[in-house]
């Protein structure tokens, strides 16, 4: 897919609203991600960050408002169209494919590049074989990048949760995205794994990868992100650098108060 590169923001949300029956889960949220920017999306439980993430990744269309990616209106485009456009995501609950090996899981990220359909795949077999070889090589490189090259042939069941998240990231990177969207990548990881993840994200950032990061862990997000959007009760209450946001009174009020409640759960 040829995308005309514009000079505007990579991702733009305009007055996005999502209602479930009478409940307003996302209320008039707008923000942007520039190229090379790492944006965090945080908020207490039920703030609407996961719903917002779903809207951006195309799990469901918003009730109203617009979403643009690379200057293209993607508001109502179904989920499967996002990856070819350059949007790749990971999942909070790791959703790797159980029946495939680690390598094959990563190769799946490159799927849209292959010929579509049965006949083209058979007819253009030379091209397909070359692509297949290339995709294996690239997938190995990505596995090497996340440090799991030696596990390439194994079933994903044999990996630890931390390793699974790394495979998920490698799979997302495999599509060669312009924007990498990570849904709570640190959830459930131990300290060492979290540090490892942070290092890797920093490396990706250094290579110029734009990212949207939904996270629960405030420390993780504050250190990893250029800018942070804070949501509460479905509304955006702050948008700025970690330093700015952490000084924001509304954020502190909303967050600290609720966080105490979170802890007791």
């Amino acid at each position, binding site marked *: 897919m040829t995308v005309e590169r514009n000079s505007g923001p990579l991702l733009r949300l305009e007055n996005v609203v999502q209602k479930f029956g009478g409940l307003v889960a996302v209320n008039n949220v707008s923000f942007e991600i520039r190229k090379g920017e790492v944006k965090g999306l945080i908020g207490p439980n039920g703030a609407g960050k996961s719903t917002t993430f779903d809207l951006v990744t195309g799990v469901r269309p918003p009730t109203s408002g617009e979403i643009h990616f690379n200057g293209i209106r993607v508001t109502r485009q179904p989920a499967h169209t996002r*990856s*070819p456009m350059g949007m790749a995501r990971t999942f909070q609950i790791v959703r*790797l494919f159980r029946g495939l090996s680690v390598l094959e899981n990563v190769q799946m990220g490159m799927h849209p590049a292959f010929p*579509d359909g*049965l006949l083209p*795949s058979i007819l253009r077999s030379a091209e397909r074989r070359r692509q297949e070889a290339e995709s294996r090589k690239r997938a190995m490189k990505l596995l090497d990048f996340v440090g799991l090259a030696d596990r390439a042939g194994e079933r994903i069941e044999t990996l*630890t949760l931390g390793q699974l998240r790394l495979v998920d990231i490698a799979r997302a990177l495999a*599509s060669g995205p312009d924007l990498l969207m990570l849904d709570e990548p640190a959830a459930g990881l131990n300290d060492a794994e979290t540090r490892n993840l942070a290092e890797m994200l920093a490396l990706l950032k250094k290579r110029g990868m734009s990212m949207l990061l939904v996270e629960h862990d405030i420390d993780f997000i504050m250190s990893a992100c250029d800018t942070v959007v804070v949501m509460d009760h479905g509304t955006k209450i702050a948008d700025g650098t970690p330093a700015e946001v952490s000084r924001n009174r509304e954020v502190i009020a909303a967050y600290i108060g609720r966080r105490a409640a979170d802890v007791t759960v």
Partner: protein
Amino acid sequence: MAHSRHIEAPRAPTLLPVAVFIALGALLPLLLSSGFHVRLAMLIWIYAILCMGFNLLYGFTGQISLGLPAFYAIGAYGFGMLQTMLGFPPLLAFAGTLAIVALLSLLIGLPLLRLRTHYLAMATLAFMLIQNGVANRWIGFTGGQSGIAVPPLEWAGETLGRTEIYYVVLVMASLTLLLHDFLIRSHIGRAMQAIRDDETAAQALGIRVTRYKLRILVVSGVLAGVAGVCFGITSLRVDPSLSEFHVLVSVLTIVVMGGLGTRFGPIVGSVIVVLLPQFLTSFGAFETVIYGVFILVFLLFMPHGLSGLFERRRWSLRRRSSPQADAQAREMRRSAE
């Protein structure tokens, strides 16, 4: 996080076993003394064709169709009727039959693939019952319960003998096997398994889930049709019993025994299911119970079937079992469900 050491990607499976199966098939008539054995061999290939379609659909894509026997029957009926009623030559009748089953699968699949698991299973079962009901009732068209005759295959004015027909069936089975193998070893097979394992994730990676399901449904329908045509040319008859429950039971038994989602499960399973009743005749009334117990034993103790025993060894040898990893994998699986 740069890793300097270079690790080779694990090797992709080769075509060698496929070639071995086809070569065995080609040699078989030379080894078999009686026409009865050749007939059994033909039936094995016919069931293998039918079940490779089912394997692609359920074993690899996770979509069940209990209506496959209907397409099997329609294949045989279509091949016979296009020749006897419209005077088509066999090749044209073959092409026409495939077009009919493809179109029907598409028509059925478009609306039904929205259904999930048991609903899809029952809806496709309803399709089989409709086909069977009509085949039994519309006597003027389908010949009712005694069915219709399928004209024997001819070559240059001569009716083909059993061994020649065997090779016709073998060619069909080999093409099916190659297609089956091509699909599951290519990016298409990966996508199919991705859909089976997690539709949401597959969608997020840019796979057009519905379109893939529909394609595979059509492929499985067409393969069932091919199996039906092959049945027609071997048995020279087709009747409604081709879409009765026992065919469905055979299909399910074959994939379970052979191994769901394996490369050669349908062939291995067909060998067992075709030969087993021939051995079980000596058990008289115990036959049915033994048959049922057989399926159960395979389901319970050999989840990947006979074929899986060989194909999966690669996995189990490498498997590192740490309790922690196991627990986490379990947790992951549970939350994915």
